[in-house]
């Protein structure tokens, strides 16, 4: 199992009332204090060195734009620095938003990072959140076309000796001959993060890329694994843990109470309803960016006067198909706060924090002492059987001291147990088994990776 660390690297001093009222995206940059920014960038880079010392296999970065939610607006800048200041850890980018920019430039940047780091880059790709399309003026209606074409172009730029000319649908280059090319051959691995868009999972199955679910609810995640499994079987291979990754939010402290106090801040960094603070619906769901199924759900959310609002975002919806359910749960989750015309700051703040027990019960966040956290992590590992397990921490306004304490405890008291479980459960990483290399059993019927049984058993034993 590949064990990595991830944090959003928030701008800790985000104006909370304004964020609650209008969302993280588009917070005026007059709120950004470069002196504080300087400290935070250094803190977050130092934290990655600490992760390496503490024994993580990888450190993961992401990017978002025009928002205090994440300070990595150009993650390749951070990755370049990490390539130089770390020695062993994989530098996992999850991921570069392909539709936003110039794919040739991206091929060059990433090849440089791979070469400087001595071949430690994991290139990952995303479509970018809806809001990113506004921040970089990327036409949302061509998002998936840009994504596919840019991906194919970059792989070619990395592998096919230049110079050559490229005339595509959206991109055109008269001279392709990037120096350098990546150190890893034929090219760096690519892991694809996602929030359960079935289209992306199917694309990953076709490319044989690991799919990493970003702290998504367990039920739809298992569903998604099965979409991937079935597509893989059509293509003639058996999925294994190496095809899947999962990011789990986890907080540990010396006492349950302290862990819970810290974890609460995460409600403001993306857990539970806090997630819908990421951006207002018009920015989350730009036209042409969403699948038909998601659009159908959005249509009901925002224009059906008779709609029945689910009492909890954690309730499974009752749609006609698993795919519709998966799409719906994401739309519901992302739009929860914004269904009323006006957001009342105090009521919303209370509603967000009132959700803590529900978030903890559904493992949206796992928090506690090492002793109480480990059995829960086991349930997640048994349920999803991921070959890549990324521990996600330290979002929201958590202090530097608490961040470090949290990380150190996690490394010393939790990680050894997680590694043992990985061995015991035979969770192979993409570095141990090449994704897509397992033959399909001759009956042709694929086996599932993961099952809801361990999770159901846990719920039964711990009703809430």
């Amino acid at each position, binding site marked *: 199992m590949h064990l990595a660390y991830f944090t959003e690297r928030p701008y800790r001093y985000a104006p909370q009332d304004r964020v609650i009222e209008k969302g993280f995206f588009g917070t005026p940059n007059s709120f950004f204090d470069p002196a504080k920014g300087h400290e935070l960038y250094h803190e977050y880079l130092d934290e990655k060195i600490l992760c390496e010392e503490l024994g993580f296999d990888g450190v993961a970065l992401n990017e978002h734009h025009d928002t205090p939610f994440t300070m990595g607006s150009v993650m390749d800048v951070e990755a370049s620095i990490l390539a130089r200041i770390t020695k062993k850890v994989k530098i996992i980018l999850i991921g570069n938003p392909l539709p936003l920019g110039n794919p040739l430039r991206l091929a060059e940047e990433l090849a440089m990072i791979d070469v400087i780091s001595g071949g430690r880059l994991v290139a990952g790709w995303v479509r970018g959140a809806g809001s990113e399309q*506004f921040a970089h*003026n990327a*036409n*949302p*209606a*061509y998002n998936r076309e840009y994504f596919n074409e840019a991906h194919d172009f970059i792989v070619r730029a990395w592998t096919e000796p230049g110079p050559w000319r490229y005339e595509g649908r959206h991109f055109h280059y008269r001279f392709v001959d990037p120096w350098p090319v990546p150190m890893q051959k034929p090219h760096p691995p690519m892991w694809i993060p996602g929030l359960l868009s079935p289209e992306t999972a199917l694309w990953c199955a076709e490319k044989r890329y690991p799919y990493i679910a970003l702290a998504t609810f367990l039920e739809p995640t298992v569903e998604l694994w099965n979409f991937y499994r079935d597509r893989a079987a059509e293509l003639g291979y058996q999925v294994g843990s190496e095809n899947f990754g999962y990011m789990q939010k986890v907080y540990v402290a010396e006492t349950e109470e302290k862990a819970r106090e810290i974890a609460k801040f995460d409600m403001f960094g993306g857990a539970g309803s806090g997630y819908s603070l990421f951006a207002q*619906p*018009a*920015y989350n*769901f*730009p*036209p*042409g960016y*969403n699948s038909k199924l998601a*659009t*159908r759900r*959005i*249509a*009901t959310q*925002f*224009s*059906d*006067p008779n709609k029945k609002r689910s009492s909890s975002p954690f309730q499974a919806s009752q749609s006609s198909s698993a795919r519709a359910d998966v799409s719906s749960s994401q739309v519901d989750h992302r739009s929860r706060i914004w269904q009323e015309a006006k957001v009342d700051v105090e009521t919303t703040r209370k509603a967000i924090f009132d959700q803590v027990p529900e978030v903890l019960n559904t493992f949206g966040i796992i928090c506690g002492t090492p002793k109480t956290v480990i059995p829960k992590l086991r349930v997640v590992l048994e349920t999803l059987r991921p070959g890549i397990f990324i521990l996600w921490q330290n979002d929201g306004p958590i202090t530097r001291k608490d961040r470090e304490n949290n990380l150190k405890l996690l490394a010393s008291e939790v990680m050894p147990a997680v590694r043992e479980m990985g061995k015991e459960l035979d969770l192979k990483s993409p570095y141990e088994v090449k994704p897509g290399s397992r033959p399909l059993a001759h009956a042709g019927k694929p086996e599932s990776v993961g099952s809801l049984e361990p999770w159901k058993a846990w719920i039964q034993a711990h009703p809430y």
Partner: protein
Amino acid sequence: MADKGQPWHQETITVDGTELAVIKGGSGRPLLVLHEEMGHPGWLRWHSEMARDHSLIIPLHPGFGITPRADWIWNVRDLAGFYARLVREQKLHPVDVIGFSLGGWIAAEMAANNQDQFRKMVLVGAAGVRPSQGEILDIFQLMAPAQLAASVLDPENTPEFEQLYGGIGPAAFELWEDARAETARLAWSPYMHNPSLPRLLGVIDQLPTLLIWGREDRVVPLSAGEAYKKAIAGSKLVVLDKCGHRPEIEQNAAFVREVKSFLS
């Protein structure tokens, strides 16, 4: 909603290999109606009034949810070229044309390319040129129902507002998202205008053109209408008071009177 007194129907015609859905109704001299960026809003009172002495031809733009998308159409100039094929293949030229908002922009591009395909042209709150004062509303930063509400000055007191698109609901919303997505493909950047269009319109020297604007248009500000007037020789700008982006329902009587008198 259909006006029962005035029959209209939807049919499919083939233009350049695309199966184009078209709403038709009325009798008399053909009037090509180019709809706006949210789609065809349904058969309204002004349609019925014009249909008394005109054959209305309302193509449903490719990619707006009914007519399939034509992926060679990258921008409004391409769409204008597609509709030039419609005019020629249906033997409509020279045809009267009326275009609303995005549809007005399409008509203007067609005229700039070949004014002879039209007899007379009416542009209503047309996008396509950059206003000198204010900006064209960024519809993509709004959810569709908010976009709709911004299109009239006073939704509550606008007759027929509730009837637009058959009323706000999931079915209308899904079609709006198709329409808005295709509008993004056509006009995401530069947003809702062609910087060259005012110069291109300079070629027009014999196309009678009527420009109709609501004084308080919050989608395409009035100064865009003034820019059109400057760009199209001999054009006439009619500005309606107490009116937003939909003069045809907000100031229905004045609108119909102006259009009828211009086209007669």
